Protein backbone atom coordinates (compact mmCIF):
# COMPACT_ATOMS: atom_id res chain seq x y z
CA UNK A 1 0.00 0.00 0.00
CA UNK A 2 1.50 3.37 -0.89
CA UNK A 3 1.24 6.36 1.36
CA UNK A 4 1.20 8.95 -1.39
CA UNK A 5 0.00 12.32 -0.25
CA UNK A 6 0.95 11.78 3.38
CA UNK A 7 2.75 15.09 3.30
CA UNK A 8 -0.06 17.09 1.68
CA UNK A 9 -0.58 20.09 3.90
CA UNK A 10 -3.91 20.60 5.60
CA UNK A 11 -4.58 23.82 3.68
CA UNK A 12 -4.38 22.22 0.26
CA UNK A 13 -6.71 19.38 1.27
CA UNK A 14 -8.03 17.38 -1.64
CA UNK A 15 -11.24 15.53 -0.83
CA UNK A 16 -11.08 11.73 -0.93
CA UNK A 17 -14.75 11.20 -1.69
CA UNK A 18 -15.06 12.30 -5.28
CA UNK A 19 -15.53 10.36 -8.51
CA UNK A 20 -15.03 6.63 -8.17
CA UNK A 21 -14.41 6.65 -4.44
CA UNK A 22 -17.64 8.51 -3.79
CA UNK A 23 -19.46 6.13 -6.11
CA UNK A 24 -18.02 3.18 -4.18
CA UNK A 25 -19.22 4.69 -0.92
CA UNK A 26 -22.68 5.36 -2.38
CA UNK A 27 -22.90 1.68 -3.32
CA UNK A 28 -21.97 0.73 0.22
CA UNK A 29 -24.64 3.02 1.67
CA UNK A 30 -27.21 0.77 -0.03
CA UNK A 31 -25.93 -2.29 1.80
CA UNK A 32 -26.53 -0.98 5.32
CA UNK A 33 -29.68 0.39 6.95
CA UNK A 34 -27.85 3.51 8.20
CA UNK A 35 -25.22 5.73 6.63
CA UNK A 36 -23.23 5.66 9.84
CA UNK A 37 -22.63 1.93 9.48
CA UNK A 38 -20.33 2.87 6.59
CA UNK A 39 -18.02 4.71 8.98
CA UNK A 40 -15.35 2.00 9.22
CA UNK A 41 -15.43 1.28 5.49
CA UNK A 42 -15.18 5.02 4.73
CA UNK A 43 -12.22 5.39 7.07
CA UNK A 44 -10.54 2.46 5.36
CA UNK A 45 -11.05 4.21 2.02
CA UNK A 46 -9.38 7.34 3.37
CA UNK A 47 -6.43 5.40 4.74
CA UNK A 48 -6.07 3.48 1.49
CA UNK A 49 -5.93 6.73 -0.46
CA UNK A 50 -3.83 8.84 1.90
CA UNK A 51 -1.91 6.43 4.09
CA UNK A 52 -3.30 8.02 7.24
CA UNK A 53 -6.37 9.87 8.49
CA UNK A 54 -5.86 13.57 9.11
CA UNK A 55 -8.20 15.85 11.07
CA UNK A 56 -9.27 17.34 7.78
CA UNK A 57 -10.06 13.89 6.43
CA UNK A 58 -12.07 13.11 9.57
CA UNK A 59 -14.10 16.25 8.89
CA UNK A 60 -14.71 15.06 5.34
CA UNK A 61 -15.86 11.63 6.57
CA UNK A 62 -18.13 13.41 9.07
CA UNK A 63 -19.70 15.32 6.23
CA UNK A 64 -20.35 12.35 3.96
CA UNK A 65 -21.59 10.14 6.82
CA UNK A 66 -23.64 12.82 8.52
CA UNK A 67 -22.10 13.01 12.00
CA UNK A 68 -19.82 15.57 13.68
CA UNK A 69 -16.03 15.65 13.15
CA UNK A 70 -15.57 15.06 16.89
CA UNK A 71 -17.64 11.91 16.61
CA UNK A 72 -15.47 10.61 13.78
CA UNK A 73 -12.34 11.36 15.79
CA UNK A 74 -13.79 9.39 18.68
CA UNK A 75 -14.26 6.40 16.39
CA UNK A 76 -10.89 6.69 14.62
CA UNK A 77 -8.96 6.78 17.87
CA UNK A 78 -10.74 3.68 19.18
CA UNK A 79 -9.18 1.42 16.57
CA UNK A 80 -5.46 0.62 16.43
CA UNK A 81 -5.26 0.12 12.68
CA UNK A 82 -6.20 3.68 11.75
CA UNK A 83 -3.21 6.03 11.67
CA UNK A 84 -3.84 9.52 12.98
CA UNK A 85 -0.34 10.64 12.02
CA UNK A 86 1.64 10.26 8.82
CA UNK A 87 3.46 6.93 8.68
CA UNK A 88 6.35 5.49 6.71
CA UNK A 89 5.89 4.00 3.26
CA UNK A 90 5.70 0.61 4.96
CA UNK A 91 3.99 -0.02 8.26
CA UNK A 92 5.10 -3.09 10.21
CA UNK A 93 2.94 -4.51 12.99
CA UNK A 94 4.62 -7.04 15.26
CA UNK A 95 2.75 -9.24 17.73
CA UNK A 96 4.35 -9.71 21.14
CA UNK A 97 1.38 -11.05 23.13
CA UNK A 98 1.99 -14.02 25.46
CA UNK A 99 1.85 -16.93 22.97
CA UNK A 100 4.28 -15.11 20.67
CA UNK A 101 6.33 -13.84 23.61
CA UNK A 102 6.82 -17.47 24.70
CA UNK A 103 8.36 -18.10 21.29
CA UNK A 104 10.69 -15.12 21.29
CA UNK A 105 8.63 -12.29 19.77
CA UNK A 106 10.46 -9.59 21.72
CA UNK A 107 13.71 -10.52 19.96
CA UNK A 108 11.94 -10.30 16.60
CA UNK A 109 10.64 -6.86 17.48
CA UNK A 110 14.08 -5.65 18.61
CA UNK A 111 15.65 -6.88 15.39
CA UNK A 112 12.98 -5.16 13.29
CA UNK A 113 13.48 -1.88 15.13
CA UNK A 114 17.23 -2.11 14.48
CA UNK A 115 17.11 -3.25 10.87
CA UNK A 116 14.58 -0.61 9.84
CA UNK A 117 16.49 2.14 11.61
CA UNK A 118 13.30 3.13 13.43
CA UNK A 119 14.91 2.44 16.82
CA UNK A 120 11.70 3.39 18.64
CA UNK A 121 8.14 2.13 18.41
CA UNK A 122 5.81 4.38 16.45
CA UNK A 123 8.65 6.46 15.02
CA UNK A 124 9.22 6.59 11.28
CA UNK A 125 12.72 5.86 10.00
CA UNK A 126 14.55 8.97 8.74
CA UNK A 127 14.38 7.70 5.15
CA UNK A 128 10.59 7.52 5.50
CA UNK A 129 10.64 3.84 4.61
CA UNK A 130 9.28 2.19 7.77
CA UNK A 131 7.12 2.70 10.82
CA UNK A 132 7.07 -0.11 13.39
CA UNK A 133 4.22 -0.84 15.78
CA UNK A 134 3.96 -3.37 18.57
CA UNK A 135 0.49 -4.91 18.41
CA UNK A 136 -1.55 -7.40 20.37
CA UNK A 137 -2.40 -10.94 19.20
CA UNK A 138 -2.70 -11.14 15.42
CA UNK A 139 -4.70 -14.38 15.54
CA UNK A 140 -1.91 -16.60 14.26
CA UNK A 141 -0.30 -17.65 17.55
CA UNK A 142 0.71 -21.09 16.29
CA UNK A 143 2.88 -19.44 13.67
CA UNK A 144 4.93 -17.25 15.98
CA UNK A 145 5.96 -14.63 15.32
CA UNK A 146 3.49 -13.23 12.79
CA UNK A 147 4.00 -9.72 11.46
CA UNK A 148 1.85 -7.60 9.21
CA UNK A 149 3.75 -5.50 6.69
CA UNK A 150 1.19 -3.21 5.05
CA UNK A 151 -1.34 -5.83 3.86
CA UNK A 152 1.09 -8.75 3.81
CA UNK A 153 0.58 -11.18 6.67
CA UNK A 154 3.89 -12.99 7.26
CA UNK A 155 4.12 -15.97 9.62
CA UNK A 156 6.94 -17.59 11.58
CA UNK A 157 9.29 -14.62 11.54
CA UNK A 158 12.56 -15.12 13.41
CA UNK A 159 15.30 -12.53 14.03
CA UNK A 160 17.37 -14.26 11.33
CA UNK A 161 14.66 -13.81 8.71
CA UNK A 162 14.09 -10.11 9.32
CA UNK A 163 16.75 -8.55 7.08
CA UNK A 164 15.75 -10.66 4.09
CA UNK A 165 12.04 -9.97 4.52
CA UNK A 166 12.51 -6.23 4.73
CA UNK A 167 14.41 -6.11 1.45
CA UNK A 168 11.17 -6.50 -0.45
CA UNK A 169 9.79 -3.25 0.97
CA UNK A 170 11.29 -0.12 -0.52
Amino acid at each position, binding site marked *: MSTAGASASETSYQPVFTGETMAALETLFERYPTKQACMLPALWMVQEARGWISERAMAEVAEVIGVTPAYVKGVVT*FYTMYHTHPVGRNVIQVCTTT*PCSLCGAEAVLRTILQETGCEELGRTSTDGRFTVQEV*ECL*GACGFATPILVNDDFIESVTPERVAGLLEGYK
Partner: protein
Amino acid sequence: MGYPYPPDEKETVVLSQYFGDEGARSYQGWVKRGGYQALEAALAMEPGAVTDVVKASGLRGRGGAGFPTGLKWSFMPKDSGKDHYLVCNADESEPGTFKDREIMRWTPHGLIEGCAIAAYAIGAECCYVYIRGEFTEPLAIMAKAVAEAYANGVLGEKLLGTGPRLEMIIHRGAGAYICGEETGLMNSLEGRRGNPRIKPPFPAQAGVFGLPTTVNNVETLAAVPHIINRGADWYQGICLGNEKSTGTKLYSVCGHVQKPGNYELAMGTPLEELIFDMAGGMPPGRTLKAVIPGGSSVPIMDAEDVKGCLLDYEGVVERGSMLGSGGVIVMDDSTDMVYQIYRLTRFYAHESCAQCTQCREGTAWTVKILERILGGHGKESDLDLLLDLADNMTGTTICVLSDSCAAPVVSGIAKFRSEFDAYLSGARPPALAAH
Protein backbone atom coordinates in the same frame (compact mmCIF):
# COMPACT_ATOMS: atom_id res chain seq x y z
CA MET B 1 -7.12 -32.67 8.83
CA GLY B 2 -5.54 -30.31 11.27
CA TYR B 3 -3.29 -27.64 9.96
CA PRO B 4 -0.46 -27.37 9.09
CA TYR B 5 0.26 -31.01 9.96
CA PRO B 6 -1.32 -34.09 8.36
CA PRO B 7 -4.22 -35.48 10.40
CA ASP B 8 -3.38 -37.42 13.52
CA GLU B 9 -5.24 -40.71 13.90
CA LYS B 10 -6.71 -39.41 17.14
CA GLU B 11 -8.37 -36.47 15.41
CA THR B 12 -12.03 -36.53 14.39
CA VAL B 13 -11.94 -34.62 11.16
CA VAL B 14 -15.10 -32.78 10.17
CA LEU B 15 -14.65 -29.02 9.81
CA SER B 16 -10.97 -29.32 9.03
CA GLN B 17 -11.34 -32.00 6.36
CA TYR B 18 -10.30 -29.61 3.60
CA PHE B 19 -7.74 -27.53 5.45
CA GLY B 20 -4.71 -27.33 3.19
CA ASP B 21 -6.74 -28.35 0.11
CA GLU B 22 -6.70 -25.31 -2.19
CA GLY B 23 -9.28 -26.91 -4.46
CA ALA B 24 -11.97 -26.59 -1.79
CA ARG B 25 -11.78 -22.79 -1.86
CA SER B 26 -13.68 -22.09 -5.05
CA TYR B 27 -17.42 -22.40 -5.57
CA GLN B 28 -16.94 -25.20 -8.12
CA GLY B 29 -14.51 -27.00 -5.84
CA TRP B 30 -16.87 -26.72 -2.92
CA VAL B 31 -19.83 -28.05 -4.89
CA LYS B 32 -17.68 -30.93 -6.12
CA ARG B 33 -17.03 -31.81 -2.48
CA GLY B 34 -20.73 -31.93 -1.70
CA GLY B 35 -21.06 -28.27 -0.84
CA TYR B 36 -24.43 -26.49 -0.67
CA GLN B 37 -26.35 -29.78 -0.38
CA ALA B 38 -27.00 -29.00 3.27
CA LEU B 39 -28.42 -25.62 2.35
CA GLU B 40 -30.68 -27.25 -0.20
CA ALA B 41 -31.85 -29.75 2.41
CA ALA B 42 -32.43 -26.99 4.97
CA LEU B 43 -34.48 -24.94 2.53
CA ALA B 44 -36.77 -27.96 2.07
CA MET B 45 -37.51 -27.85 5.81
CA GLU B 46 -39.46 -25.33 7.89
CA PRO B 47 -37.11 -22.81 9.51
CA GLY B 48 -38.21 -23.98 12.96
CA ALA B 49 -37.37 -27.56 12.04
CA VAL B 50 -33.82 -26.50 11.11
CA THR B 51 -33.45 -24.91 14.54
CA ASP B 52 -34.76 -28.11 16.13
CA VAL B 53 -32.12 -30.22 14.39
CA VAL B 54 -29.38 -27.90 15.63
CA LYS B 55 -30.89 -28.00 19.12
CA ALA B 56 -30.97 -31.78 19.10
CA SER B 57 -27.36 -31.99 17.93
CA GLY B 58 -26.18 -30.37 21.15
CA LEU B 59 -24.02 -27.84 19.27
CA ARG B 60 -22.78 -25.10 21.60
CA GLY B 61 -21.24 -21.76 20.69
CA ARG B 62 -17.56 -22.06 19.82
CA GLY B 63 -16.80 -18.36 20.37
CA GLY B 64 -16.06 -18.90 24.04
CA ALA B 65 -19.24 -18.97 26.07
CA GLY B 66 -20.55 -22.37 24.94
CA PHE B 67 -24.17 -21.28 24.78
CA PRO B 68 -26.45 -23.85 23.06
CA THR B 69 -26.78 -22.68 19.46
CA GLY B 70 -30.26 -23.99 18.66
CA LEU B 71 -31.61 -22.43 21.85
CA LYS B 72 -30.05 -19.09 20.91
CA TRP B 73 -31.71 -19.23 17.50
CA SER B 74 -35.07 -20.04 19.10
CA PHE B 75 -34.92 -16.75 21.05
CA MET B 76 -35.40 -14.82 17.81
CA PRO B 77 -38.93 -13.45 17.67
CA LYS B 78 -41.47 -15.04 15.33
CA ASP B 79 -43.67 -12.83 13.18
CA SER B 80 -42.23 -9.64 14.66
CA GLY B 81 -42.60 -7.88 11.34
CA LYS B 82 -39.10 -6.47 11.88
CA ASP B 83 -35.94 -7.12 9.89
CA HIS B 84 -33.75 -9.80 11.47
CA TYR B 85 -29.96 -9.93 11.26
CA LEU B 86 -27.37 -12.67 11.45
CA VAL B 87 -23.88 -11.58 12.40
CA CYS B 88 -20.98 -13.95 11.92
CA ASN B 89 -18.30 -13.14 14.49
CA ALA B 90 -14.94 -13.46 12.72
CA ASP B 91 -13.10 -11.04 14.95
CA GLU B 92 -10.90 -13.83 16.37
CA SER B 93 -8.55 -11.90 18.64
CA GLU B 94 -8.40 -13.99 21.80
CA PRO B 95 -4.70 -14.72 22.40
CA GLY B 96 -4.03 -18.38 21.66
CA THR B 97 -6.91 -18.76 19.20
CA PHE B 98 -6.38 -19.09 15.44
CA LYS B 99 -9.00 -21.55 14.22
CA ASP B 100 -11.57 -19.27 12.57
CA ARG B 101 -8.78 -17.96 10.39
CA GLU B 102 -8.15 -21.46 8.97
CA ILE B 103 -11.86 -22.07 8.42
CA MET B 104 -12.10 -18.86 6.37
CA ARG B 105 -8.85 -19.50 4.51
CA TRP B 106 -9.65 -23.04 3.38
CA THR B 107 -13.42 -23.46 3.40
CA PRO B 108 -14.98 -20.04 2.86
CA HIS B 109 -17.99 -21.58 1.13
CA GLY B 110 -18.54 -23.89 4.09
CA LEU B 111 -18.88 -20.81 6.26
CA ILE B 112 -21.15 -19.08 3.76
CA GLU B 113 -23.32 -22.20 3.67
CA GLY B 114 -23.49 -22.29 7.47
CA CYS B 115 -24.43 -18.61 7.56
CA ALA B 116 -27.11 -19.15 4.92
CA ILE B 117 -28.68 -22.02 6.87
CA ALA B 118 -28.61 -20.04 10.12
CA ALA B 119 -30.08 -16.96 8.43
CA TYR B 120 -32.88 -19.08 7.01
CA ALA B 121 -33.59 -20.61 10.43
CA ILE B 122 -33.82 -17.24 12.20
CA GLY B 123 -35.59 -15.39 9.38
CA ALA B 124 -32.74 -13.01 8.54
CA GLU B 125 -32.43 -11.54 5.06
CA CYS B 126 -29.10 -9.98 5.82
CA CYS B 127 -25.89 -11.41 7.23
CA TYR B 128 -22.84 -9.38 8.18
CA VAL B 129 -19.55 -11.21 8.48
CA TYR B 130 -17.39 -9.08 10.76
CA ILE B 131 -13.73 -10.00 10.13
CA ARG B 132 -10.88 -8.48 12.12
CA GLY B 133 -8.96 -5.92 10.09
CA GLU B 134 -5.60 -7.66 10.39
CA PHE B 135 -6.89 -10.81 8.65
CA THR B 136 -5.99 -9.54 5.19
CA GLU B 137 -5.87 -12.98 3.57
CA PRO B 138 -9.13 -14.35 5.04
CA LEU B 139 -10.80 -11.04 4.14
CA ALA B 140 -9.76 -11.40 0.51
CA ILE B 141 -10.72 -15.07 0.34
CA MET B 142 -14.11 -14.49 1.94
CA ALA B 143 -14.85 -11.49 -0.30
CA LYS B 144 -14.08 -13.60 -3.36
CA ALA B 145 -16.20 -16.51 -2.14
CA VAL B 146 -19.18 -14.25 -1.36
CA ALA B 147 -18.93 -12.76 -4.85
CA GLU B 148 -18.88 -16.27 -6.33
CA ALA B 149 -21.89 -17.27 -4.22
CA TYR B 150 -23.82 -14.29 -5.60
CA ALA B 151 -22.71 -15.03 -9.16
CA ASN B 152 -23.85 -18.64 -8.86
CA GLY B 153 -27.26 -17.80 -7.48
CA VAL B 154 -26.62 -19.03 -3.95
CA LEU B 155 -27.01 -15.60 -2.37
CA GLY B 156 -29.18 -12.67 -3.40
CA GLU B 157 -32.87 -12.34 -4.15
CA LYS B 158 -33.56 -16.03 -3.61
CA LEU B 159 -31.31 -18.41 -1.69
CA LEU B 160 -30.28 -21.12 -4.19
CA GLY B 161 -32.89 -19.72 -6.55
CA THR B 162 -35.80 -20.98 -4.45
CA GLY B 163 -35.50 -19.72 -0.90
CA PRO B 164 -35.96 -16.32 0.70
CA ARG B 165 -33.66 -13.37 0.07
CA LEU B 166 -30.22 -13.29 1.69
CA GLU B 167 -27.66 -10.51 1.40
CA MET B 168 -24.18 -11.20 2.78
CA ILE B 169 -21.76 -8.39 3.52
CA ILE B 170 -18.15 -8.68 4.61
CA HIS B 171 -17.36 -5.97 7.14
CA ARG B 172 -13.74 -5.20 8.01
CA GLY B 173 -12.81 -4.40 11.60
CA ALA B 174 -9.98 -2.02 12.36
CA GLY B 175 -8.05 -3.41 15.30
CA ALA B 176 -9.83 -3.79 18.64
CA TYR B 177 -10.13 -7.04 20.62
CA ILE B 178 -13.29 -5.84 22.32
CA CYS B 179 -15.14 -5.87 18.99
CA GLY B 180 -15.20 -9.66 19.37
CA GLU B 181 -17.59 -9.20 22.29
CA GLU B 182 -20.96 -9.41 20.57
CA THR B 183 -22.41 -6.10 21.72
CA GLY B 184 -19.12 -4.26 21.12
CA LEU B 185 -19.18 -5.81 17.66
CA MET B 186 -22.68 -4.49 17.04
CA ASN B 187 -21.66 -0.97 18.02
CA SER B 188 -18.63 -1.21 15.77
CA LEU B 189 -20.80 -2.42 12.90
CA GLU B 190 -23.05 0.59 13.42
CA GLY B 191 -20.05 2.89 12.97
CA ARG B 192 -19.38 3.64 16.62
CA ARG B 193 -16.63 3.01 19.13
CA GLY B 194 -16.76 -0.69 19.97
CA ASN B 195 -17.99 -0.30 23.53
CA PRO B 196 -20.00 -3.27 24.80
CA ARG B 197 -23.62 -2.59 25.68
CA ILE B 198 -25.50 -3.37 28.85
CA LYS B 199 -27.70 -6.48 28.58
CA PRO B 200 -30.68 -6.67 28.59
CA PRO B 201 -31.89 -5.98 26.01
CA PHE B 202 -30.37 -9.12 24.53
CA PRO B 203 -29.43 -9.20 20.84
CA ALA B 204 -32.44 -11.35 19.95
CA GLN B 205 -34.72 -8.50 21.05
CA ALA B 206 -32.66 -5.44 20.16
CA GLY B 207 -29.35 -6.17 18.49
CA VAL B 208 -27.59 -4.47 15.63
CA PHE B 209 -29.50 -1.38 14.43
CA GLY B 210 -31.87 -2.04 17.33
CA LEU B 211 -33.32 -5.06 15.53
CA PRO B 212 -33.47 -8.77 16.41
CA THR B 213 -30.00 -10.22 15.90
CA THR B 214 -28.18 -13.50 16.35
CA VAL B 215 -24.41 -13.42 16.70
CA ASN B 216 -22.52 -16.66 16.15
CA ASN B 217 -18.88 -17.57 15.93
CA VAL B 218 -17.31 -18.77 12.66
CA GLU B 219 -16.68 -22.30 13.94
CA THR B 220 -20.24 -22.61 15.26
CA LEU B 221 -21.72 -21.64 11.89
CA ALA B 222 -19.28 -23.81 9.94
CA ALA B 223 -20.47 -26.85 11.90
CA VAL B 224 -24.10 -26.35 10.89
CA PRO B 225 -23.99 -27.76 7.31
CA HIS B 226 -22.40 -30.97 8.61
CA ILE B 227 -25.17 -31.34 11.19
CA ILE B 228 -27.85 -30.85 8.53
CA ASN B 229 -26.13 -33.32 6.18
CA ARG B 230 -25.42 -36.06 8.67
CA GLY B 231 -28.10 -35.52 11.27
CA ALA B 232 -28.39 -34.48 14.89
CA ASP B 233 -27.84 -38.03 16.16
CA TRP B 234 -24.53 -38.35 14.37
CA TYR B 235 -23.28 -35.07 15.85
CA GLN B 236 -24.54 -35.87 19.31
CA GLY B 237 -22.81 -39.22 19.10
CA ILE B 238 -19.40 -37.55 18.82
CA CYS B 239 -18.89 -37.47 22.55
CA LEU B 240 -16.27 -39.21 24.66
CA GLY B 241 -16.99 -37.47 27.94
CA ASN B 242 -20.00 -35.55 29.17
CA GLU B 243 -23.19 -35.76 27.09
CA LYS B 244 -23.67 -31.99 27.45
CA SER B 245 -20.66 -31.50 25.20
CA THR B 246 -21.08 -32.96 21.74
CA GLY B 247 -19.48 -32.84 18.33
CA THR B 248 -15.99 -31.84 17.33
CA LYS B 249 -14.00 -28.81 18.42
CA LEU B 250 -11.03 -27.18 16.80
CA TYR B 251 -8.15 -26.55 19.18
CA SER B 252 -5.41 -24.12 18.36
CA VAL B 253 -2.25 -25.20 20.14
CA CYS B 254 0.59 -22.72 20.57
CA GLY B 255 3.50 -21.85 22.80
CA HIS B 256 6.05 -24.45 23.83
CA VAL B 257 5.01 -27.43 21.72
CA GLN B 258 6.86 -29.00 18.83
CA LYS B 259 3.92 -29.05 16.43
CA PRO B 260 1.81 -25.96 17.01
CA GLY B 261 -1.32 -25.80 14.87
CA ASN B 262 -5.00 -26.67 14.74
CA TYR B 263 -6.34 -30.06 15.78
CA GLU B 264 -9.96 -31.20 15.56
CA LEU B 265 -11.08 -33.48 18.35
CA ALA B 266 -14.19 -35.24 19.54
CA MET B 267 -15.53 -33.62 22.70
CA GLY B 268 -14.09 -35.39 25.72
CA THR B 269 -10.62 -36.15 24.33
CA PRO B 270 -7.89 -36.01 27.02
CA LEU B 271 -5.95 -32.73 27.05
CA GLU B 272 -2.71 -34.69 27.51
CA GLU B 273 -3.26 -36.50 24.20
CA LEU B 274 -3.62 -33.16 22.45
CA ILE B 275 -0.50 -31.63 23.99
CA PHE B 276 1.85 -34.59 24.13
CA ASP B 277 0.76 -36.83 21.25
CA MET B 278 -0.76 -34.64 18.58
CA ALA B 279 1.13 -31.40 19.19
CA GLY B 280 4.36 -33.28 19.84
CA GLY B 281 4.90 -32.23 23.44
CA MET B 282 7.56 -29.87 24.73
CA PRO B 283 10.92 -29.27 23.10
CA PRO B 284 13.48 -31.95 24.05
CA GLY B 285 14.52 -31.85 27.69
CA ARG B 286 11.66 -29.61 28.71
CA THR B 287 8.74 -30.43 30.98
CA LEU B 288 5.25 -29.01 31.21
CA LYS B 289 4.72 -26.14 33.61
CA ALA B 290 1.38 -24.54 32.76
CA VAL B 291 -1.47 -24.53 30.24
CA ILE B 292 -4.08 -21.91 29.49
CA PRO B 293 -6.64 -24.15 27.78
CA GLY B 294 -9.33 -21.84 26.41
CA GLY B 295 -7.70 -18.72 25.05
CA SER B 296 -5.97 -16.26 27.35
CA SER B 297 -9.14 -15.30 29.27
CA VAL B 298 -9.46 -18.46 31.33
CA PRO B 299 -7.65 -19.50 34.53
CA ILE B 300 -4.17 -21.00 34.23
CA MET B 301 -3.78 -24.74 34.88
CA ASP B 302 -0.60 -26.26 36.28
CA ALA B 303 0.83 -29.62 35.19
CA GLU B 304 -1.15 -31.39 37.91
CA ASP B 305 -4.47 -29.92 36.70
CA VAL B 306 -3.71 -31.12 33.18
CA LYS B 307 -3.40 -34.76 34.23
CA GLY B 308 -6.56 -36.61 33.33
CA CYS B 309 -8.36 -33.47 32.15
CA LEU B 310 -10.97 -34.16 29.48
CA LEU B 311 -11.44 -31.50 26.83
CA ASP B 312 -15.09 -30.59 26.96
CA TYR B 313 -17.04 -27.77 28.60
CA GLU B 314 -17.55 -29.67 31.87
CA GLY B 315 -14.21 -31.49 31.97
CA VAL B 316 -12.11 -28.33 31.92
CA VAL B 317 -14.33 -26.60 34.50
CA GLU B 318 -13.77 -29.61 36.76
CA ARG B 319 -10.06 -28.80 36.59
CA GLY B 320 -10.57 -25.20 37.56
CA SER B 321 -10.51 -23.57 34.16
CA MET B 322 -12.74 -23.23 31.10
CA LEU B 323 -12.82 -24.53 27.52
CA GLY B 324 -13.40 -21.00 26.18
CA SER B 325 -12.44 -20.66 22.53
CA GLY B 326 -10.17 -23.72 22.52
CA GLY B 327 -6.92 -21.79 22.24
CA VAL B 328 -4.43 -23.95 24.15
CA ILE B 329 -1.36 -22.00 25.29
CA VAL B 330 1.37 -24.35 26.50
CA MET B 331 4.24 -23.24 28.75
CA ASP B 332 7.26 -25.36 29.64
CA ASP B 333 9.55 -25.19 32.66
CA SER B 334 11.64 -22.40 31.11
CA THR B 335 8.71 -19.98 31.40
CA ASP B 336 8.85 -16.98 33.68
CA MET B 337 5.24 -17.11 34.88
CA VAL B 338 5.35 -13.65 36.44
CA TYR B 339 6.52 -12.08 33.20
CA GLN B 340 3.98 -13.96 31.08
CA ILE B 341 1.11 -13.07 33.40
CA TYR B 342 2.30 -9.47 33.23
CA ARG B 343 2.35 -9.65 29.42
CA LEU B 344 -1.21 -10.98 29.43
CA THR B 345 -2.43 -8.17 31.69
CA ARG B 346 -0.80 -5.69 29.33
CA PHE B 347 -2.96 -7.15 26.58
CA TYR B 348 -6.13 -6.52 28.60
CA ALA B 349 -5.03 -3.04 29.68
CA HIS B 350 -4.42 -2.15 26.04
CA GLU B 351 -7.69 -3.65 24.86
CA SER B 352 -9.97 -2.30 27.61
CA CYS B 353 -12.56 -0.05 25.98
CA ALA B 354 -12.28 2.02 29.17
CA GLN B 355 -15.96 2.67 29.75
CA CYS B 356 -16.13 0.80 33.09
CA THR B 357 -13.96 2.20 35.88
CA GLN B 358 -13.13 -1.20 37.41
CA CYS B 359 -11.73 -2.38 34.08
CA ARG B 360 -10.00 0.82 32.92
CA GLU B 361 -8.32 1.43 36.29
CA GLY B 362 -8.04 -2.20 37.32
CA THR B 363 -6.22 -3.39 34.21
CA ALA B 364 -3.87 -0.38 34.27
CA TRP B 365 -3.00 -0.76 37.94
CA THR B 366 -2.52 -4.51 37.61
CA VAL B 367 0.07 -3.85 34.92
CA LYS B 368 1.82 -1.19 37.01
CA ILE B 369 2.05 -3.39 40.08
CA LEU B 370 3.37 -6.34 38.07
CA GLU B 371 5.88 -4.01 36.44
CA ARG B 372 7.03 -2.95 39.87
CA ILE B 373 7.42 -6.57 40.98
CA LEU B 374 9.32 -7.53 37.81
CA GLY B 375 11.46 -4.42 38.20
CA GLY B 376 12.64 -5.58 41.62
CA HIS B 377 10.71 -2.96 43.56
CA GLY B 378 7.73 -5.02 44.62
CA LYS B 379 6.41 -4.83 48.15
CA GLU B 380 5.35 -7.67 50.44
CA SER B 381 1.78 -6.42 50.24
CA ASP B 382 1.66 -6.33 46.43
CA LEU B 383 0.24 -9.81 45.99
CA ASP B 384 -2.65 -9.05 48.31
CA LEU B 385 -3.14 -5.77 46.50
CA LEU B 386 -3.27 -7.61 43.15
CA LEU B 387 -5.81 -10.08 44.52
CA ASP B 388 -7.90 -7.28 45.98
CA LEU B 389 -7.87 -5.47 42.65
CA ALA B 390 -8.77 -8.71 40.86
CA ASP B 391 -11.70 -9.15 43.22
CA ASN B 392 -12.97 -5.68 42.33
CA MET B 393 -12.53 -6.45 38.63
CA THR B 394 -14.61 -9.63 38.68
CA GLY B 395 -18.34 -9.58 38.03
CA THR B 396 -18.57 -5.80 38.24
CA THR B 397 -18.45 -4.59 34.65
CA ILE B 398 -20.55 -4.48 31.48
CA CYS B 399 -18.54 -7.22 29.75
CA VAL B 400 -16.07 -9.80 31.05
CA LEU B 401 -12.83 -8.33 29.69
CA SER B 402 -12.06 -7.15 33.20
CA ASP B 403 -12.71 -10.62 34.64
CA SER B 404 -10.47 -12.06 31.94
CA CYS B 405 -7.59 -9.89 33.10
CA ALA B 406 -8.14 -10.95 36.69
CA ALA B 407 -8.27 -14.70 35.88
CA PRO B 408 -4.57 -15.26 35.10
CA VAL B 409 -3.52 -13.05 38.00
CA VAL B 410 -5.59 -14.94 40.57
CA SER B 411 -4.80 -18.40 39.23
CA GLY B 412 -1.16 -17.42 38.63
CA ILE B 413 -0.64 -16.28 42.22
CA ALA B 414 -2.46 -19.34 43.54
CA LYS B 415 -0.40 -21.80 41.52
CA PHE B 416 2.97 -20.12 41.06
CA ARG B 417 3.29 -17.99 44.18
CA SER B 418 6.92 -18.96 44.72
CA GLU B 419 7.85 -17.29 41.43
CA PHE B 420 6.29 -14.02 42.59
CA ASP B 421 8.03 -14.38 45.94
CA ALA B 422 11.38 -14.85 44.21
CA TYR B 423 11.05 -11.39 42.63
CA LEU B 424 9.79 -9.87 45.86
CA SER B 425 12.67 -11.23 47.95
CA GLY B 426 15.31 -10.38 45.38
CA ALA B 427 16.19 -14.07 44.95
CA ARG B 428 15.49 -13.57 41.26
CA PRO B 429 17.08 -10.62 39.44
CA PRO B 430 14.69 -8.03 37.95
CA ALA B 431 13.27 -8.97 34.53
CA LEU B 432 12.28 -5.41 33.65
CA ALA B 433 14.18 -2.16 33.92
CA ALA B 434 12.94 -0.14 36.89
CA HIS B 435 10.22 2.38 36.08
